[in-house]
């Protein structure tokens, strides 16, 4: 017998990998093409919150793409992370317009509230923050993004409420999960 993986894989990871397999089977246009890699990595990033080595090895075998090349792509794009990312990733725009409109003050307040530095994650795994360049809505500057949500005309005073909103949302999601309805079962949708 030839084992395919380098390390024993936990049950949770196994079931997630199964989903990745299903994604690869059903993802429409690029099936069986190398171009499927990008979508697959996106899917894994959303599903796991980062790109675990096991998942990259799994995709490597499924798509017949060498792991060295997958690692190359995974490290090329800022969007992908090799370590678990925070549940709620905050991107603060410091493009010219947002910077001029006071982006730096937002950054200071964010740092104060979260007590973490750039690129770090809060101990509870809830928040992390990063600087980004133009998000494409300079007229509404300064702009901040939390996962998929965009906050415009930001002022430092809005920050505590926004963070609180996500904390509440997360508690609710946890309850739903306890009840057996997986809130994170359908990443990317």
């Amino acid at each position, binding site marked *: 017998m*030839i*084992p*395919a*993986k*380098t390390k024993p894989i936990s049950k949770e990871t196994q079931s997630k990998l199964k989903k990745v397999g299903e994604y690869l089977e059903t993802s429409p246009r690029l099936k069986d093409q190398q171009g499927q890699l990008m979508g697959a990595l996106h899917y894994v990033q959303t599903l796991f919150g980062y790109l675990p*080595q096991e998942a*990259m*090895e799994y995709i*490597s*075998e499924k798509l*017949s*793409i*060498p*792991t*060295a*090349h*997958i*690692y*190359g792509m995974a*490290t*090329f794009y800022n969007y992908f992370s090799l370590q678990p990312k925070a549940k709620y990733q905050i991107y603060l725009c410091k493009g010219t317009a947002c910077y001029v409109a006071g982006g730096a003050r937002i950054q200071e307040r964010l740092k104060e509230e979260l007590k973490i530095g750039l690129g770090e994650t809060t101990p509870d795994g809830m928040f992390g923050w990063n600087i980004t360049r133009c998000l494409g809505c300079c007229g509404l500057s300064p702009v901040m993004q939390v996962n998929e949500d965009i906050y415009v005309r930001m002022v430092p005073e809005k920050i505590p409420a926004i963070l609180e909103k996500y904390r509440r949302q997360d508690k609710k999601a946890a309850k739903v999960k306890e009840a057996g309805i997986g809130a994170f079962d359908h990443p990317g949708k």
Partner: protein
Amino acid sequence: MTKQITLTIDGQKVTVPAGTTIMQAADNIGLHIPRLCFHQKLSSIGACRVCVVEVAGMKNFAPSCCTAATDGMVVKTNSQAVRKARRDIVELILDNHPRDCQICERNNNCDLQELANTLGIREFTYEGERKRYAVDQSAGITRDPEKCITCGKCVRVCSEIQGVNALSYAYRGFRTTVLPAFNMPIKDSVCINCGQCTLFCPTAAITETDATADVWRNLNDPAKTVIVQIAPAVRVALGEGFGFEPGVDKTYEAVTALRLMGFKVVFDTQFSADLTIMEEGHELIHRLKNNGKLPMITSCSPGWIKFCEHFHPEFLGNLSTCKSPQQMMGALIKTYYARKMKIDPANIYSVSIMPCTAKKFEASRPEMNASGYQDVDAVLTTRELIKMIKQAGIKFNELKGSEFDNPMGESTGAATIFGVSGGVMEAALRTAYEVITGQALPSIDFKAVRGFDGIKEASVDIAGTVIKVAVIYGMANVHKVFTEMEQGKRSYHFIEVMTCPGGCMGGGGQPYLPNQAEALDKAWYEKRAQGLYKIDELKKIRKSHENPQIKQIYQEFLKQPLGEVSHHLLHTHYHYRLPKGIASKVKDTVSI
């Protein structure tokens, strides 16, 4: 016929087929545009930008290696602006490169150094941040990413010729670097230690792992009996280090030099190559007669063995169980020879000189201690031997030849040609034919398995049975053949696999080619090969089973091929290895 186009380069009109790059068109009229990341056997990626040229009407300078020439194009390769841009580019590369030429492995044999010199760069214009990385070492390969200029030749040769894909670009921008998957140590990766990357690297970012210091230490240790063996392919390339043409036979001068350096006993790996043929030939016959697993595949090329373990473990049962000549010799030195001469094998330090970086890994395998000790203690590449001869102050060009030591110094022509793609096959057929038929061969030369094609096929009629054979080099070709075998498109009885292009002629441990000739020069490798075929032709005995010392060792020690002693000392088994590799698929055979 392809459409012809005409363009003007530096005022000269040149007509070329459509699709030709500007660089190729310039080459046609004798203009050498400076280049760094370009290699004609690899895809062009325009990574280094050194080959930029000025094209009338184009806003930016174009990389000539990957810009197609068009009809009416007007190109300047040497204008003031282009020269300045090119210099700037190289100066920027130099800024992010350690400035330690004097103490560098590739000093005087470095494309970057040569380029900086040719362009007349005499001062460091830029001072900026420099990348910092630790050195990463496996048994065969040493990576020093600080010296890497991210030209990507190693990535391409590893992927496009060897199909291994051990290396890839990672990260981006200033942080771009070449890494194994997951930034794992190269020793844990799918790297097969073939060393082709060392031949392609324009700087010293990838080299063989040095063994010279350890060998010198042991040569100077009075308690040690230092014994050395030298591989066939080394003897026709060694001279290159001392100004000789490739292919000049320097066997006996090498023996003299080794003795002068302090090696007590000098044996010939060709002796154990003959022994390999005895064992492997009989193994083939055994498999043919007893419905054994076919095709049988040769196992003397250690890069290929590791490739098989990572990428095609389903073929491990097809591998000949014979160890490589290096390991057979190693096992015999510490058993047969040690007993004969009453030397404690613990005090023997066994060195081999190989055209190969993968042999370093092979010697370090845990399987390879049949004598109760590590059978081969150190492996030197041809390059390292050249270096050591120079370090010892030996005037190689003035040496007189001397003979190998007995009882493992005599060899046949069949063993000599082990060093070239097709040679092991030819040697095995010479012996198998005569053992099976009991008759002398009508013609000793099997020309069909010679030459530099990546995949060669032949059929040999042995006593009414047609034996189908294949000879392959390059792992991308191996993957292609295996895939087609699984699809039922190919079938063979016996396959010879060599890891490197052209077999050991293009071995990863062979001397670097002069700067402008570049790696993988077919004409150069052919000269080396002709050197070996000439030695074969001039040998009195050209079939392994007729070697008198082989007869003697069977009589005194081994008793019979595939016998119990052989089984213990000369045969082994290999096992699948993780991580699992994904080989490149190539459409056409990769030939040099």
